[in-house]
């Protein structure tokens, strides 16, 4: 038969497949472009991290910062760097990474680029709780603030709202579009509560609440940063273990099930990690807007990858956050909180990438 001959010919010429790296029993897909981009992003993030430490009233040159970070610096530098400036820079790094990964997960789970922790109610829930605690004086509110602290209470508010959205959206499985719609509705409710609290509150409390509402890295202490750091590291470990099982979910639940993935469990674990990561970020820096939405999208386009790549998303998040903080402190004439700058930089950059893709 003629048809059979054609097929035999095709078997003879081996099709071009994605190459692999194989060492003993360990093997991985090798994507040179994505690996290169990820490496460059890592280098860039480290450079900005060191620059961010060097810039300030007492400027320190980059080589001295790098030496100190690796434990070979002079004693004067060590005090300024490790005690005064490191917490802020580290907070930027951790918050950026956490938001980047959180956004990559939520966008992949919902199969919708709109689904970021901002949209899914996590940040707005945290904000509503924080503003409530700041503006409502006395009684239970004061007791909560005194006992667990504003950040922890806000974190709980964010987690609660995130889980509420998840359970409201659950109907024999999770549909991405439904998740986004319910997330937007709950976010709107939380924002209404926040606005109502701000309008009715005492003007001095409003100023304090506003400062919290715009994400900021000012005056971070080691205590605040280390909590977020360890949480993020632990969650990243969980995410990297589950990430492999997650790959087929990019094709939808039925294909994933057909490929032997217990998709409901995998998705629940990852979404919980995403909510906790966003919560850790909020507790360390307040609700920094837009990073979780833009970082995975930028990482996808830079890395030329059809789905949000985790490592690259984390690094873009870190670059965006540290870079924005650096610009807010060193370039702009007035010192702004980082949250104002992230949206101002991230937004246009994503638009640029989209427009360039349209023209290509």
């Amino acid at each position, binding site marked *: 038969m003629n*048809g*059979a*001959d054609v097929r035999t010919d095709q078997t003879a010429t081996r099709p071009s497949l*994605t190459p692999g790296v194989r060492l003993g029993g360990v093997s991985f897909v090798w994507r040179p472009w994505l690996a290169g981009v990820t490496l460059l992003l890592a280098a860039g993030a480290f450079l900005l991290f060191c620059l961010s430490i060097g810039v300030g009233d007492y400027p320190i040159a980059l080589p001295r910062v790098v030496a100190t970070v690796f434990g070979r610096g002079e004693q004067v530098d060590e005090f300024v760097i490790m005690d005064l400036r490191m917490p802020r820079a580290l907070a930027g790094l951790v918050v950026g990474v956490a938001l980047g990964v959180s956004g990559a997960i939520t966008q992949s789970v919902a199969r919708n680029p709109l689904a970021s922790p901002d949209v899914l109610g996590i940040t707005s829930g945290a904000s509503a709780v924080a503003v409530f605690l700041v503006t409502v004086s006395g009684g239970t509110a004061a007791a909560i603030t005194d006992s667990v602290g504003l950040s922890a209470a806000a974190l709980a508010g964010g987690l609660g709202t995130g889980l509420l959205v998840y359970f409201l959206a659950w109907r024999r499985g999770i549909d991405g579009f439904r998740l986004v719609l319910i997330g937007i509705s709950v976010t709107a409710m939380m924002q209404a509560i926040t606005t109502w609290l701000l309008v009715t509150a005492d003007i001095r409390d409003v100023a304090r609440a506003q400062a919290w509402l715009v994400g900021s890295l000012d005056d971070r202490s080691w205590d605040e940063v280390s909590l977020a750091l360890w949480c993020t590291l632990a969650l990243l470990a969980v995410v990297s273990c589950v990430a492999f099982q997650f790959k087929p979910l990019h094709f939808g639940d039925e294909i994933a099930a057909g490929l*032997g993935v217990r998709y409901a469990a995998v998705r629940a674990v990852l979404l919980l990690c995403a909510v906790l990561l966003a919560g850790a970020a909020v507790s360390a820096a307040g609700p920094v807007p837009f990073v979780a939405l833009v970082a995975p999208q930028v990482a996808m386009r830079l890395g030329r990858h*059809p789905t949000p790549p985790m490592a690259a998303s984390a690094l873009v998040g870190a670059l965006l956050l540290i870079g924005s903080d650096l610009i807010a402190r060193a370039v702009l004439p007035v010192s702004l909180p980082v949250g104002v700058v992230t949206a101002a930089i991230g937004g246009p950059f994503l638009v640029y990438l989209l427009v360039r893709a349209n023209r290509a």
Partner: protein
Amino acid sequence: MVVQSITGVKPGTDGASRLAARGVTVGYGTRTVIDGLDVAVPPGVVTTIIGPNGCGKSTLLRTLARLLKPTGGKVVLDGDDIARLRTRDVAKKLGLLPQAPVAPEGLTVSDLVARGRHPHQSWLRQWSSDDADVVARALAMTGVSDLADRPVDSLSGGQRQRVWISMTLAQGTDLLLLDEPTTYLDLAHAIDVLDLVDDLHESGCTVVMVLHDLNLATRYSDNLVVMREGSILAQGHPRDVITAELLHEAFGLRAKVIEDPVGDRPLIVPIGRTHVELDRLAPEL
């Protein structure tokens, strides 16, 4: 010459059914769609489930594929209750292609087909040389090797369906469940995909599919399962099953069944209210 099976073995020589539903009751929520159904999938042939809209065709296929959990009875795969098997082990034996699957934008054909290896991979072993070999074979068997570098969304509907079938083949199974593989395809592309299904059958695959088009189902299957309201009305070779009476009973369709001028199966000529010259039909009615 016959294309090698993806697993390299000719299955089903013992004649025993590999996949069967035994007294299966299944539904969505409180609504029961199928009640106490028995069906066995004969090995090495193409079985097609047909029936009117909402009769439970897809529900049956999804239950056989373990996507739906029956509330009564069980599905048996190679002698084991499928509900007791690990999802991963089911995926190594049975490939499933759901209706109208969607790939992420920009994903290449080779990456999509490579995903079919998932049940055989682990965190540390994500792309072995075995995987590469099987994927190359799956691409070749479905005739999409030349498209390996192309993004899936740039392909035509028919090519795309070939690629998805290629992914299920890469799972290394010879038992394929296809839910309406010709949906949204024009007739030429539908024929192309069904010819591919026939090639796979020739190479030793057992195929179960749901089709809407009765004439395509008749032409391409060796075993028809005709359903109505959640139960099986008739089952067997199209030559034995397809009659004007059955079509009327199953679909409420008036039709004339004639010899297929280009094949050895019956051909269904539907009779609607209009555009029919009944006097040409009269002598036989």
